[in-house]
């Protein structure tokens, strides 16, 4: 089965099988969007938490760290309750669209970004903020400086979040509906083919998913090297 999967994976890649390309497109679109949105909200939150101390901060970090272990089906169910026509956000008609997947994956990614990025900010030399201020940095410049100093850690936090959402299944299935050509992701494809008993095909698509993740991580490393 392993050999057959590898062969199938090559086949699918080289022939640019349209179903696989489409699934990869949906996967990338949803996972990248969710990760970036989580960063937009999560990094400022992480910076606020990393700079300060106290009981409130510790509680918030506890919540964030616990949130890293959210089961995807639970998130899927909760967001489904929100987006379903029977739910409060029903009229937005978001269910079974890529936007719904992004919504669910956002909640999966957010705690990871916050918890790990906060760690990076907290690990900075505590004099960093003061050093920036005495040299004339205003509040906005101070925040940018902290962000830059914690840069690699913040990027790593995003890559960790991306890894989590790109490989998750529960949310994509429940909120996306695995609709061919619309919300069928690489992971829902794997689940579907496996359910049909086509294990080799499922594994092959799995290899492609790993390849995709490899590409994203390699891209991040390249960007970092070039920024040096």
């Amino acid at each position, binding site marked *: 089965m392993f050999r057959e999967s590898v062969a199938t994976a090559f086949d699918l890649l080289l022939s640019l099988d349209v179903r696989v390309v489409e699934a990869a497109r949906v996967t990338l679109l949803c996972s990248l969007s969710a990760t970036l949105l989580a960063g937009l909200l999560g990094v400022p939150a992480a910076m606020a938490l990393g700079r300060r101390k106290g009981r409130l901060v510790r509680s918030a970090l506890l919540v964030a760290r616990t949130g890293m272990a959210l089961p995807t089906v639970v998130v899927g169910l909760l967001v489904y309750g929100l987006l379903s026509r029977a739910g409060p956000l029903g009229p937005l008609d978001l269910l079974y669209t890529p936007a719904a997947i992004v919504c669910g994956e956002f909640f999966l990614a957010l705690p990871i970004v916050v918890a790990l990025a906060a760690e990076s900010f907290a690990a900075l030399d505590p*004099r960093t903020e*003061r*050093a920036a*201020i*005495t*040299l*004339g*940095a205003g509040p906005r410049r101070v925040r940018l400086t902290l962000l830059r100093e914690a840069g690699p850690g913040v990027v790593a936090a995003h890559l960790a979040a991306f890894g989590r959402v790109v490989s998750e299944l529960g949310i994509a299935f429940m909120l996306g509906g695995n609709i061919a050509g619309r919300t069928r992701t690489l992971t829902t494809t794997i689940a579907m083919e496996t359910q049909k008993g086509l294990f080799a095909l499922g594994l092959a698509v799995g290899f492609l998913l790993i390849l995709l993740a490899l590409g994203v991580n390699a891209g991040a490393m390249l960007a970092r090297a070039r920024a040096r």
Partner: protein
Amino acid sequence: MLAEARDLQVVRDGRVLLALEHVAIPGPGPAMVEGPNGSGKSTLLAVLAGLQPPTRGIVEVFGERLWPAAERTRRATRRGIVLCDSEPLFFRGTVAANVAFCAGGADAPAALAAFGAAGLAARRPGTLSTGERRRADLARALIRRPRLLLLDEPTSHLDAEGARWVLDAIRRICAAGTGVVFSNHGDRDLAALAAFRLTLGKAS
């Protein structure tokens, strides 16, 4: 008057870091703050830099109220003051980038050259020797033409030649009109420079 403080006290986590009834530091100095470990020398410099809020007391620099004051007014006063730590902290990037930090396009290489550190521009701070870091830090501080320069134990960790260079630099900076206040822990040559002495006793 360079700086004046009245009824100053800084308490953190229940410990008194600094207690000072009154001090009036005349310009341009150089003024020295001395005292045993734990007497609050670094804390006083941080308060004068507008970075450390005191628990109690009134602090004025150049006649402008630093503490207690609204953050906006303090920010304006703080712009003319720079504090240099005994072990300077540099950000990511080259020495030149660090010198130019928030300096509004001023000439970093020229600032470095003024301290004989022109060759350090493209280096990374992590690769510099202690003396070189001191030069870069001073260049970084003075590029923004502060009215008051605060130096925390400026000769610490330096060899004799490095220390001599720092003393000379302090003389030059003062002569150019910038106010200087430094803390000292036992360096006699540094002490000899002082035009004004403040001795702190053990705070708690």
